[in-house]
């Protein structure tokens, strides 16, 4: 039996939920803000949705305007999210080598 697109996608959905749960549960409280802004950046992946709908069809002026806004929104979400997370995490990393001698050798 060949699974339909829906069932395949639902399997991916459920498994991704469990993987997400397993990975995220291990993140310590201290890093919750970067986790949040990092995952924030990841849901900016809706950018792809905007690009796809715009690139593959996108007829009509209003549709085009709405989609360009959607792509812009998605880009803000992705670019801003990753940059801000990077800035935050750099601060957490900054002192690490100074503090413990057994830290990574770099």
């Amino acid at each position: 039996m060949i699974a339909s697109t829906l069932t395949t996608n639902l399997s991916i959905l459920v498994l991704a939920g469990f993987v997400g749960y397993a990975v995220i549960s291990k993140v310590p409280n201290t890093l919750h803000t970067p986790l949040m802004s990092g995952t924030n950046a990841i849901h900016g992946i809706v950018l792809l949705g905007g690009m796809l709908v715009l690139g593959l069809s996108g007829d009509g002026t209003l549709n085009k305007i709405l989609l360009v806004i959607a792509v812009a929104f998605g880009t803000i979400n992705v670019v801003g999210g990753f940059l801000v997370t990077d800035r935050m995490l750099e601060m957490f990393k900054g002192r690490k080598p100074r503090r413990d001698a057994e830290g990574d050798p770099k």
Partner: protein
Amino acid sequence: MILGSFLQSENFVYVLYIVAFGLFIYGLSGLTGPGTAVRGNRIAAVGMAIAILATCLKHGMGHWALIVVGIAIGTAVGVPAARQVKMTAMPQMVALFNGVGGGAVFLIAWVEFRESHGFDGVATYITIFSLFAAIVGSVSFWGSNIAFGKLQEILPGRPITLGRAQQFVNLLLLLGALACGVAIAAGSHQEILMIGLLVFAAVLGNLMVLPIGGADMPVVISLLNAFTGLSAAATGIALNNPALIVAGMIVGASGTILTNLMATAMNRSIPAIVAGGFGGVVTTGGGADDDGVERTVKSTSAADAAIQMTYANRVVVVPGYGMAVAQAQHAVREMTKLLEEKGIEVAFAIHPVAGRMPGHMNVLLAEADVPYEQLKEMEDANAEFGRTDVSLVIGANDVTNPDARTKADSPIYGMPILNVDESGSVIVLKRSMNSGFAGIDNPLFYNDKTSMLFGDAKASVGEIVEELKAL
């Protein structure tokens, strides 16, 4: 030619998507420690770049100019915002980034409706997932904007409620949105229904977040984050795109975990928070206790506080939102450095909901160069208050309120708190005796062990630093 058609084949694009979400998961697993986190985040960003590239390769893509315009606008707005935002303003920045994600989701769903002439001839499940994405995306967009407005203090931070009618109105709005959705799924192609659905969801998003008091913000931000993630995953199913499904679902899971952690840390149920409250609670007591006994607070000076701390073996700093507001983190770091030079053991006790978003205090303290090892989570910190000589509470209130342990009718009863009252003495830095955000009286302030240092947190800590240098 052959290479070109291979690069554009569905399978190749799909494989790139798999690589992308593999990198997301691998990257996020790096966030479990400060040493690997930077690399983890960058790996996830590479995954995102690959996903975007794969999308560009998709066969039949057009409207390149428009796509570039959209991305250019997004970059022009996002990059400077992310570069310039102050660490103290991080909660509102996260709310804003979260909101635009939700905005993109509902816009996509709306255009899909328009292009398919009301989901005409579209599989029912695709219609349902698109409509789900539209509702949740719209709630998330508007809710996040309100959260941003509150955190940025454009809107008043106190809860704005419709009183008793609130839950009923929210329910009606949800039913309204669902009714529009059901009508569309049942085959109606009227665009007014789609617009109605988005408007109902938009008003619902506004009304959901307006009643939330500042102290509940960490829960709400996490919840909105989960919403946007789930709506992105639904968009992924509607568009048959595995990268969207996996990425959206991981964020959904992450947001849900955080929401739960935050709610547990406040001993409040998520529905109760969303239904509003906390700040709406009537203030109990003024200067008098329940039995009518007049209580007094002891006030102290920066000089005395400095002396008190220099005689301590162990000092624990308990930061709260007040530290963020006053931007006092650098002054605090300077102070703890001086204390450490005097051979005093210093730690920071951080309540999970201190501040306005999960981990808010940690980010500020990391910015000020406080060593990661000095940041103690609640359980570890509580185990050591007994051997702490001085606890310095900086702009934190509810998370130190002993009523949460003892007073059954207190609105925060049952919330796990930092047991600062177990330490030898307590110094509380506070602007005035006005009750905090939640409007709940805090008996800690009247405790014999406690002395209050009134004033702006940054100024007060600055004075303590001067005194410590002079000693």
